[in-house]
């Protein structure tokens, strides 16, 4: 991978409906926090990486112009990276590559979304060209189709998948209640989830992420700088990213190759051979509870077709073998462009023991993940407490 890289600070806004602030103010909220957390100043930063969803969601073609001051990027190099839902992971990877290559020592990575300023589903409908891959139903239908394909491929009973998805949703919402920055903070029961109105069957209301405003900032540093600046860095143990071909029907999305291959690459680099046993916590990108079931399999955390069994027996619940999304995950907070970087920040908080009420006791090795595009991209970053 090149030189060792560490996370030396994280900053997140209070996520939710943030009509109280202009968009640059929101970005500044996260950037201010990350500098306070890392204990450095913009003078110490060699470069900035920024990403969000496409311009349609932002209200302008290049929001990094609008945010130049909030990003403290004036007089520094800027790289913009975006890959739809996986943007946050891509932003982190850009910063990691930048430092690992030896071209920079300290890089500020920022991602944001202010979904209440525009129309997220209208934007999602413009992600693809408008004459060939014309699907109905926006993002929820794309991922519901994938979940149903997975259920059909493994002959998973509707009721069993429903029960497991409800557990995923209840666990995530319980996490959200413990995370003061989460957008949705409600107590749900399995029955609340399974009886909720249908959005895109099998997906119901509480199987779906909210529309959120929020920003996340993470400062990455080289080994030398991290050891000098930070008492307890979170070390990048491995990263992986994979893309797929454009047309959704061209491959079997129940056995999602980009998730499988991206995680394999990250595990290999991190020296992980049994991820379920070796990882202490996972921040799996879960905008839809059914999709998390499929991710658990494709991330190699349980055998193919068996995620519902593992979820029902509590493997991924709080106190289970591998707690997933203790922060509440994307199901509670979804500023899309930032959601993948929030997963990285949460993984860093966990392995440095700074996650507060949603801390997984003694976590030393954490996986973070995000996916994006029309079932097209997957990115993984694994962080650990030891170099």
């Amino acid at each position: 991978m090149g030189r060792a890289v560490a996370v030396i600070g994280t900053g997140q806004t209070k996520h939710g409906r943030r009509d109280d602030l202009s968009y640059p103010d929101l970005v500044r909220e996260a950037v201010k926090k990350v500098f306070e957390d890392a204990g450095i100043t913009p003078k110490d930063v060699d470069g900035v990486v920024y990403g969000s969803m496409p311009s349609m969601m932002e209200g302008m073609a290049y929001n990094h112009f609008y945010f130049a001051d909030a990003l403290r990027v004036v007089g520094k190099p800027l790289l913009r990276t975006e890959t739809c839902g996986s943007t946050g992971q891509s932003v982190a990877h850009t910063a990691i590559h930048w430092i690992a290559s030896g071209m920079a020592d300290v890089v500020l990575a920022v991602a944001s979304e202010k979904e209440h300023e525009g129309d997220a589903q209208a934007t999602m409908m413009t992600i693809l060209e408008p004459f060939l891959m014309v699907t109905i139903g926006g993002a929820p239908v794309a991922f519901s189709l994938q979940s149903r394909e997975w259920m059909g491929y493994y002959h998973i009973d509707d009721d069993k998948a429903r029960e497991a998805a409800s557990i995923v949703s209840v666990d995530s919402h319980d996490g959200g209640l413990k995370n003061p920055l989460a957008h949705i903070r409600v107590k749900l029961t399995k029955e609340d989830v399974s009886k909720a109105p249908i959005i895109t069957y099998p997906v119901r209301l509480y199987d779906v992420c909210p529309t959120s405003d929020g920003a996340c900032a993470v400062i990455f540093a080289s080994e030398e700088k991290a050891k000098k600046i930070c008492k307890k860095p979170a070390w990048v143990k491995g990263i992986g990213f994979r893309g797929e071909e454009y047309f959704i029907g061209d491959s079997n999305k129940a056995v999602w190759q980009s998730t499988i291959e991206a995680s394999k690459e990250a595990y290999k680099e991190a020296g992980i051979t049994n991820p379920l046993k070796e990882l202490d916590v996972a921040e799996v990108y879960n905008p839809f509870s059914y999709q998390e079931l499929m991710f658990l399999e494709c991330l190699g955390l349980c055998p193919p077709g068996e995620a519902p069994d593992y979820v029902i027996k509590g493997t991924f619940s709080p106190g289970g073998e591998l707690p997933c999304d203790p922060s509440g995950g994307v199901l509670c907070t979804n500023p899309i462009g930032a959601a993948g970087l929030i997963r990285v920040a949460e993984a860093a908080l966990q392995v440095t023991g700074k996650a507060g009420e949603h801390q997984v006791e003694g976590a030393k090795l954490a996986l973070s993940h995000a996916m994006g595009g029309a079932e097209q991209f997957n990115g993984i970053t694994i962080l650990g407490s030891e170099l």
Partner: protein
Amino acid sequence: MAEQKEKPRKVGAMGMVPYEMALGPTWTKFFEGFKEKKILGTKCKKCGRVLVPARPFCPRCFEPMEEWVEVAQEGTIVTWSYVNYTYFGVTPDMIPVIGAIIKLDGVDCGTGMSTQIGGLDIKDFELVTKKVKVGARVKAVWRRKRQGNFRDIDYWKIIE
């Protein structure tokens, strides 16, 4: 910042841009086929796959796909979803609808374009879960007036 009595407000903005997007020779011919109620795929001479919609080049082999094949208008449901919420441009009278990915007979991929399931009372959710299943057989139903675009297939009917 000092206390301020005005609640922060928003300002309206709108961006609209018309586009003229080139179909190129392959997708032009593909949509011309729709006018004649034909579903056309192209075949890769290297890997032998037949793909719908037709492709100018094989996504895996990177070779031109110049051999045209008229494919079956029947197939099986790979996956489906019951869409029951309103969003941008969709009003309550336009839902529910059923989206699907369909594998046409003799085609080597699933097709997700113009693949709404219809021909049954979609508002009757119980009926839908009885008839619409992964693996169920479907058949294309064309619009009477066709214009050479994705709307030409009105819906896909479940074959009993």
